[in-house]
């Protein structure tokens, strides 16, 4: 028999594609030729080698996304849409009526994301993100909101985004087969429903898969933890890298935190309206560092500040700030941190009260 034909049969034999006759034939060859027998045994090992396994939670993640999209599709599950509707309205009225007025029945997500110092580097290059169908990097546009400003933008798919002072958004002029944007800062998203193109937000080290329509994101550089609060519906949160396995699904009224390089925390119930405050020009800090508070004020009022005692910055404070007169706000900060705050034009200097020093 021609050698080629012989190996074709052996290949078929190895691949379970051969006939009974061919199988018999191969057995005969092997019986006659110990060398061939050894080769085939070795090849059998190759043929039966196991493929590198995929992370166990990978499929769960995919199924979750699919499942949620099916759930949200009003055409497919009209029965489910109705009760959800009333629940949302009911819930919304209790906790943040003003959002309900604006956004009716649509799911509202609130994602509060406080990003790390690395963000500023991360936003200039996106080598770490490689998702399908996204427009090429250079096609992304960057929108930067100056301090003291607020901007509203409508994306190509009709999605509307309100951005707070000091935020940065990267978005493609037109969306391809998927929708993905990058945010640093704080924004409210009103995402147009499109089950074929899930909406993803990449914020620093976090990947947030939006399973519904509306949500709010906050991503500042002074905090290394991404924290996500969901006002309504569901979102998934995970490290954007493949290696980081755990994903949490955060349901409405819950919050989860994702420190850089670690797993997201178990979602806990929070008072969601506290995290929506910025849209009403007020913000609540709970056990936050003075550094975080000042960073927020700096963006709102566009001032520069100098702190003479760095210990002040690490001090923990809980404070409810309304965006009013800058002097009133600074006075409040001065009182709770026990510091002297002086304003020279746009520059602000912060000093520990003298009594603490010798």
């Amino acid at each position: 028999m021609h050698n080629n034909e012989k190996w074709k049969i052996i290949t078929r034999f190895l691949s379970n594609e051969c006939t009974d006759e061919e199988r018999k034939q191969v057995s005969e060859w092997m019986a006659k030729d110990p060398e061939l027998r050894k080769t085939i045994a070795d090849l059998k090992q190759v043929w039966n080698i196991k493929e590198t396994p995929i992370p166990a939670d990978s499929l769960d993640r995919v199924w979750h996304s699919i499942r949620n999209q099916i759930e949200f599709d009003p055409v497919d599950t009209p029965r489910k849409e109705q009760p959800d509707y009333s629940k949302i309205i009911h819930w919304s009225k209790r906790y943040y009526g003003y959002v309900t007025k604006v956004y009716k029945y649509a799911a509202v997500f609130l994602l509060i994301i406080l990003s790390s110092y690395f963000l500023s580097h991360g936003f200039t290059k996106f080598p770490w993100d490689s998702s399908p169908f996204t427009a090429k990097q250079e096609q992304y546009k960057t929108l930067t909101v100056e301090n003291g400003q607020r901007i509203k933008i409508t994306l190509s798919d009709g999605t509307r985004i309100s951005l707070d002072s000091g935020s940065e958004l990267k978005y493609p002029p037109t969306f391809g087969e998927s929708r993905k944007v990058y945010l640093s800062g704080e924004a409210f998203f009103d995402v147009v429903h499109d089950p074929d193109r899930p909406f993803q937000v990449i914020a620093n080290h976090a990947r947030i898969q939006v399973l519904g329509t509306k949500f709010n994101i906050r991503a500042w550089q002074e905090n290394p933890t991404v924290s996500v609060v969901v006002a309504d519906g569901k979102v998934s949160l995970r490290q954007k890298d493949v290696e980081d396995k755990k994903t949490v699904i955060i349901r409405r009224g819950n919050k989860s935190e994702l420190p850089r390089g670690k797993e997201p925390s178990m979602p806990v119930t929070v008072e969601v309206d506290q995290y929506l405050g910025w849209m009403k020009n007020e913000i609540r800090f709970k056990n936050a560092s003075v550094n975080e508070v000042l960073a927020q004020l700096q963006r709102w009022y566009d001032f520069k500040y100098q702190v003479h005692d760095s210990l002040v910055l690490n001090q923990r404070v809980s404070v409810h700030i309304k965006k009013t007169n800058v002097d009133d706000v600074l006075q409040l900060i001065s009182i709770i941190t026990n510091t002297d705050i002086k304003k020279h034009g746009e520059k602000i200097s912060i000093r520990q009260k003298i009594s603490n020093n010798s």
Partner: protein
Amino acid sequence: MQYINAEHIKKIKKGDVRSFELLFNSYAESLLKFAVRYVHDLNIAEDIIQNVFMTVWKYRSELQEQKNIKSYLFTITKNQCLKYIRHNKVEQEYAARELSTESESTTPLDIVQEKETRHSINNAIQELPEKCRIIFCMNRFDRLTYAEIAEIQGISIKTVETQMMRALKYLRKKLSHLNKK
């Protein structure tokens, strides 16, 4: 693993999510691995698989009970992967990644003989020419028959055979090198 039968397909056509989940559980893992071979990135492959199943769901009314759903799923996945590759320069990324894994692979752990062999075989498989590699993996890892591969790839069974033989020849050569060491 439970296999999908005509009854399940009928239910999916009527919008039964549970049957659809069964379909997902039966094939998603194979499809995900299959997609990774094309795009070389798990994240991307995940998105592709999501798209595939969303497409199936969207057009579920057109599913045909008597047709091989497995081939159908693999075909859509393949097409989505190729579409992705056309839009992106996967090749360059892959080349860069291969370099990085190469430097990683010289850890003391790899000295363990069996692991090394497995590693070498996997490497050898990766070295196969693209078309050959994908066909080989479809047969070996996804347990697809020559006929199924031919259908999905839109090629003749004869071509599948030729590619499988090509893989065998190459791997045999690699293996003999390995044994000599």
